């Protein structure tokens, strides 16, 4: 459908971010099921009597009617489909969901529909909200599948240099080359770093599985840490900048003033 022709759009969307806009409005960054990423203005939602405000908080899945304004879409109706309320009541939950949104925004553009990515986003926020599985698992699954859908799928099955299938042994991984290298090629590649057989096995499992299969994976903490570092490395290589939300999570986990003798939150289990 040609968006430039439309006057009115009925969409289902996830609210990614909101920013203050004008006197009492907010500019929303949306990921719609029908048209991918869009921006829209929600008029008057900072007024306490606004009927729409409660439906338009970030991480909410919402049914929207948008009308074409002079420059931007304007929200005329909004109805919550999935509020993900528990996320809003938990500081780490807000941090994780923000990471999901930030990563999605950095890896995609306003480039038309991507229904698979929409489904991945909706399910990831739901899993974080339900809080049944470890956040580390939910986030690694999201990262691998987002990379896939955004066109940066890392090669985990065969050596990116000699193209031979990877054997069940410790290997190398290169962010610059976008995948694993066999021990022979890995030793010769300066950008490669070692990756254990276990971490690679879990990564491959998450990459090719549905969430229902992937959620049964329970890597040991050291392996989970290795998976996280490898993916963070690969993501920073692709994005060429640091993300804000991991730093935010780090800051809110530690006491503000070292002099107040609060024990720092354990970071060994932290999925970011």
């Amino acid at each position: 459908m040609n968006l430039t022709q439309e006057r009115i759009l009925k969409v289902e969307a996830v609210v990614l971010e909101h920013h203050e806009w004008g006197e009492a409005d907010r500019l929303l960054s949306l990921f719609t099921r029908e048209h991918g990423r869009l921006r829209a203005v929600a008029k008057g939602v900072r007024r306490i009597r606004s009927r729409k405000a409660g439906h338009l908080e970030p991480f909410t899945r919402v049914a929207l009617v948008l009308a074409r304004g002079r420059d931007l879409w304007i929200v005329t109706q909004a109805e919550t489909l999935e509020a993900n309320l528990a996320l809003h009541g938990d500081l780490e939950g807000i941090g994780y969901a923000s990471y999901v949104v930030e990563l999605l925004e950095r890896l995609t553009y306003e480039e038309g529909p991507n229904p698979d990515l929409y489904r991945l986003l909706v399910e990831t926020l739901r899993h974080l909200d339900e809080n049944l599985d470890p956040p580390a698992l939910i986030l690694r699954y999201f990262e691998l599948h987002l990379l896939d859908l955004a066109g940066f799928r890392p090669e985990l099955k065969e050596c990116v240099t000699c193209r031979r299938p990877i054997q069940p042994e410790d290997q190398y991984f290169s962010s610059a080359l976008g995948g694993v290298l066999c021990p022979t090629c890995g030793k010769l590649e300066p950008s490669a770093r070692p990756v254990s057989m276990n971490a690679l096995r879990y990564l491959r499992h998450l990459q090719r599985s549905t969430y229902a299969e992937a959620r049964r994976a329970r890597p040991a903490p050291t392996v989970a840490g290795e998976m996280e570092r490898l993916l963070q490395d690969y993501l920073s290589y692709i994005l060429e900048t640091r993300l804000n939300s991991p730093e935010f999570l780090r800051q809110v986990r530690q006491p503000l003033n070292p002099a107040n003798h609060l024990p720092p939150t354990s970071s060994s289990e932290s999925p970011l």
Partner: protein
Amino acid sequence: MAVLPEPVQNLAVAFERLPGIGPKTAARLTFYLLRAPEEVSRQLAEALLALKSQTALCENCFNITRAGQSLCEICSDPERDESLICVVEEPLDALAIERTAAFKGRYHVLHGVLSPIEGIGPEDLKIRPLLDRVRRGGVREIILATNPSLEGDATALYLRQQLLPLGVRVTRLARGLPVGGDLEYADQNTLLRALAGRQEMD
């Protein structure tokens, strides 16, 4: 179109930088001042200069105060209850609560809210001075009056986490149905909280 003289253009450009003012409004304001008595312009100019040079932040609560005064009117008022601190995002929020005339405690202005995606963390707000105020003792209750938005929630959750170990009571403004509102338009979020926070009618 003939180019306007520089002084006229300069003012129009300056107006246009203000929030909510586009080129048309900027030109209208400029031409209004051009025609109005000189007194109007002089008063405006003096008020603008004084705005920056004669204001400062209160050393205790970080609300706006007159330059040269270390404490604002509220912090230096002995009638105000210093064991009760209301934490707000911006000075305008303190003003809104003052208009109710129902709050007799003191304020603490954070000058912003936490935002994970924009990278605004605890160090960017006036949170450390708030913790110091509580540590100095004599504070009974902290009322968190951040906005009922994602960022306001994040900020309140963080403050709770930092304040509870200090042994102070932490409360948050109630959320629910606005006065004159219509139930059928309420979102689930607001209704759930209104239900949870229902009160005995006695």
